[in-house]
């Protein structure tokens, strides 16, 4: 009877016009190779996020979709939101 725990990034989705990269990190517990549990942790990366510590597969997606044009558009949108919401 061997228990093991592994991490899978089982969903990497590009969402919206600003190419947010939604990541689902699954923690999988297995017993003798058969999955017992799978729990999820999520986070979202935006074009201004620091991705240095992300796994290569996620960095590859980010680098593929975050063109300079997308980064500029996201920055402009963020600033417009901050301006709108600052009272």
């Amino acid at each position: 009877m061997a228990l093991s725990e592994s991490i899978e990034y089982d969903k990497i989705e590009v969402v919206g016009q600003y190419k947010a990269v939604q990541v689902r990190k699954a923690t999988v517990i297995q017993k003798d190779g058969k999955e017992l549990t799978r729990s999820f942790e999520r986070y979202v990366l935006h074009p201004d996020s620091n991705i240095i510590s992300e796994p290569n597969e996620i960095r590859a997606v980010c680098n593929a979709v975050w063109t300079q044009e997308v980064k500029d558009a996201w920055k402009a949108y963020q600033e417009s939101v901050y301006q709108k919401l600052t009272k």
Partner: protein
Amino acid sequence: MVTRIDTDGIKDLAVKTAKIDNDAVGPDQLADTAVTAGSYGSNTHIPEITIDAQGRITAANAAAVSIPAGTTINNNADNRVITGSGTANTLNGESGVTYDGTNFTLSSGRLNLTDEGNGQQLSIGASGDFNIEHDSNHTYLGNNTGDIVIQNDANVKITAKSGGTQRFRFDSDGLKFGTDTAAANALDDYEEGSFTPVYAMSGGGQNVDYHDQQGQYVKIGKFVHCSIHLRIDTVHANGSGIAFIGGLPFQGASNTGQGPGYGTGAVGYINGQGGGDWWHGYVEQGQTACYLYYGVSSGTSQNVNIANYLYNAGSLRISISYQIT
């Protein structure tokens, strides 16, 4: 010199078999066994022969036997299953039921399993792993090994037996209730999980250590509900701009054809923070941030920032709901 024949005739044992010519012994020289010469056996009698230890036929009779009449199979053909009939000595080949050594085929009619009093009517698998049972009240599908997988390239529906009214429908959009067919109304996802919420400032530069930093989410279709507990340990740097809770698990819907992604944050509990009453939150569309406000002034929500409202050891429990794309 003659030694085997004397005046009485040939001496005992003087004549050996080898000394007798083939076919030299005729019927008259054989012992009479009293068997009547004749032909024994017919289409109603079989010969009954008795043979002694010397191999001689000592009796012969004709014994009467009862030979069944021949059986006729009507409508017979290769692989057809044979069934009885209401006529003596007559069977039927069933054109709708065949077995070719591999497949048993029922090409017309139905398979009726009518015994409702002895459990399963149909058992499938070497150990009967999958079974179907109907008792006088209910029907049961049972499976002991692995999953039950329903495979269909078109829709899967659950309908009423009478009238066929749809109750549920599974299609490529998700699960639809009742008679609904609209893609927008399909439930296509349910998910639970965790995330790590953070306090952040629109201008950046904040540095906060947390005593508690917990986020749980439930996603039902496009609806996301988050439960957050943030308790600050130490604020090292305030940053600039307005404060928000970042790190939400999904990006809110944008306004580009997907409808507004606005969401709300309802503060359930606050302790040790500034700003007075009525803290609340607002999720901007297309973002993963819930902006924090502490009240209303002249009809407008008032921003929170770390420097003036989020203190060391301050605690906030907030639930946030919003829609995603």
